[in-house]
């Protein structure tokens, strides 16, 4: 584990991160607010001593209470993965800025996150369904999208999508049916 990376990040991103820089095994994690994400990513990508120039992954996350966008970055300058968690996106109208200005390859990743979670990436020129059919209506990986346990509970399964969505979880409490991430 590379301690100097933590110091460099704290120096570079002073005031932009939420909470401390956490390190475990070969992963370094910082949390930012979605509004700051483009600035943070630009700093990480451009500054000489960080040079996080490979976007390893972009994932959406639906903790039962909020939406998150998780970036994984790789830089030849350090031997650790960097995880940037843009947290605090509302579940009812999830919107986050796009990262396509840095990595055009992020376009399809954001399309997938939109397809699975309904997160609208503002600035992505081609934000449409990518995996599910174009006329599909709901977002499968949201926590309030429940699977049928077997064919008996999905009548006509196969020919029709077996979706049984529920009333959205209220931001405050949410309904018990939805699994919630622990407050970590």
């Amino acid at each position: 584990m590379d301690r100097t990376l933590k110091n460099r990040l704290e120096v570079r991103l002073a005031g932009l991160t939420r909470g401390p820089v956490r390190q475990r095994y070969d992963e370094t994690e910082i949390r930012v607010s979605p509004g700051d994400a483009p600035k943070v990513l630009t700093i990480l990508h451009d500054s000489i001593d960080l040079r996080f120039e490979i976007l390893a992954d972009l994932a959406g996350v639906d903790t039962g209470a909020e939406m998150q966008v998780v970036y994984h970055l790789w830089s030849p300058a350090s031997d650790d993965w960097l995880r940037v968690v843009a947290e605090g996106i509302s579940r009812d109208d999830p919107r986050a800025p796009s990262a396509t200005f840095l990595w055009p390859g992020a376009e399809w990743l954001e399309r997938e996150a939109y397809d699975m979670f309904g997160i609208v990436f503002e600035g992505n020129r081609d934000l449409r369904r990518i995996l599910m059919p174009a006329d599909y209506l709901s977002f499968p990986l949201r926590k309030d999208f429940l699977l049928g346990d077997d064919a008996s509970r999905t009548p006509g399964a196969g020919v029709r999508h077996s979706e049984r969505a529920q009333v959205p979880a209220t931001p405050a409490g949410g309904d018990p049916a939805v699994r919630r991430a622990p407050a970590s």
Partner: protein
Amino acid sequence: MPTRRQPAQSATTNADPKAAPNARAAGGRRASAKPDVRGVGPRGRISADDPRVTLEQEIGSDLYEPIPPFPIKTEREGEFYSLRDGEIFLNIGPHHPATHGVLRLVLKLSGEQIVDVDPVIGYLHRGVEKICENSDYYHVIDQVDPLEYLSSLFQEWPAVMAFEKLMDVEVPRRAEYIRVLTGELLRISSHTLYMGFMALDLGGLTPILYSFIERDEIVEMLASITGARMLFNYYRIGGVNGDLNHEFMSRLGDWMSRAGKQAEAITALLNENEIFLRRMRDVGTMDRATALRYGVTGANIRACGVPFDLRRAHPYSVYPEIDFNIPTREEGDSLARYLMRVDEIKESIRIIDQCLHQMPDGPIMAKLPRLLRPRPGRAWAAVEAPRGSLGVYAMSDGTDQPFRFRIHDPSFMHLGVVPHMLPGNLLADTMAIVSSLDPVMGGVDR
């Protein structure tokens, strides 16, 4: 059918999305009954410049996805689905002999030259991530198998690595060596198949059969320890399922004795073939800046001169103890991508040889509770699969099921480069470029 009557450029979203599928489902069943909808009367034609009609002749009629897919939603879609003079749409796939699996490329051609391309994926989206989030940690390893179906061990590897991080499990070294050994075997089989399909897409019949001979030998070899030819559910959290047995070792020794010569024999069919070289050289060139910006990894980025290989850049298993090279090439064209695989096969044979010599004795599984309840947290692990860095991002909420299980597949990123690489080339180059990127649709669509 309001959605089809609109001009292609209109970006309106007022069409009733509830009525439209109805009409399409009904109309598709009696496609012959409403010829005007399909754009073809009993003997009538519609102008070839009307995208909504001519493409429907090739991919499904109104029963299936119309072109454009729905009321135009995005700007890029609006650009693509508007035709200039002399341009036609050509739909390739989802069923097409050259697109391995169910990739679909909507090409905008002028003559034989490609103006623009819109890849459509998702025809193999099986909802694996959702299933994994609803099944416990043992089932996940089995569920992720069919994604990278050409080298499914590489799909299990990051998953078990991430789970081991979550559970602070120490993997015995013999198990690590067995993982490296089996993984490199699969890398060889995958690359050999790649070479065969490369030739098949350029019209050569024979190399693919030679490749399949190699692949069958390796796969049968692995079947003797895993019991399956394709979807080996072999790796476990904290080790591997079974130890190497005698049949495996005898098959492996038999194969290793002539592996090098076999690879030479297969490549000799193509590497001196002038037609093959002329079709691959300077086609689909990708410079390193583009490769980095588009998140290309694996052999494809090493063909652009970027020595990014997780086995060295971020050593994850016993790879630090093994001596091998990272071959790179400067010219980023299809031929370089092809020759990269040829070199990697040689390196993998070296790695297997060292594994056999350095493999220690000892246990192959760590001590684990029967019911896995890792602490709440997040873990990311990535390995160097035959197609690039294949990562898994797992979140745990303390229960026996992963709370979020995200699979990052390199083929997905490589297909994202295709719209950047294709325009300007000829129709025949589509296959030379797409198959040189070596996508596996199972991994792309997940």
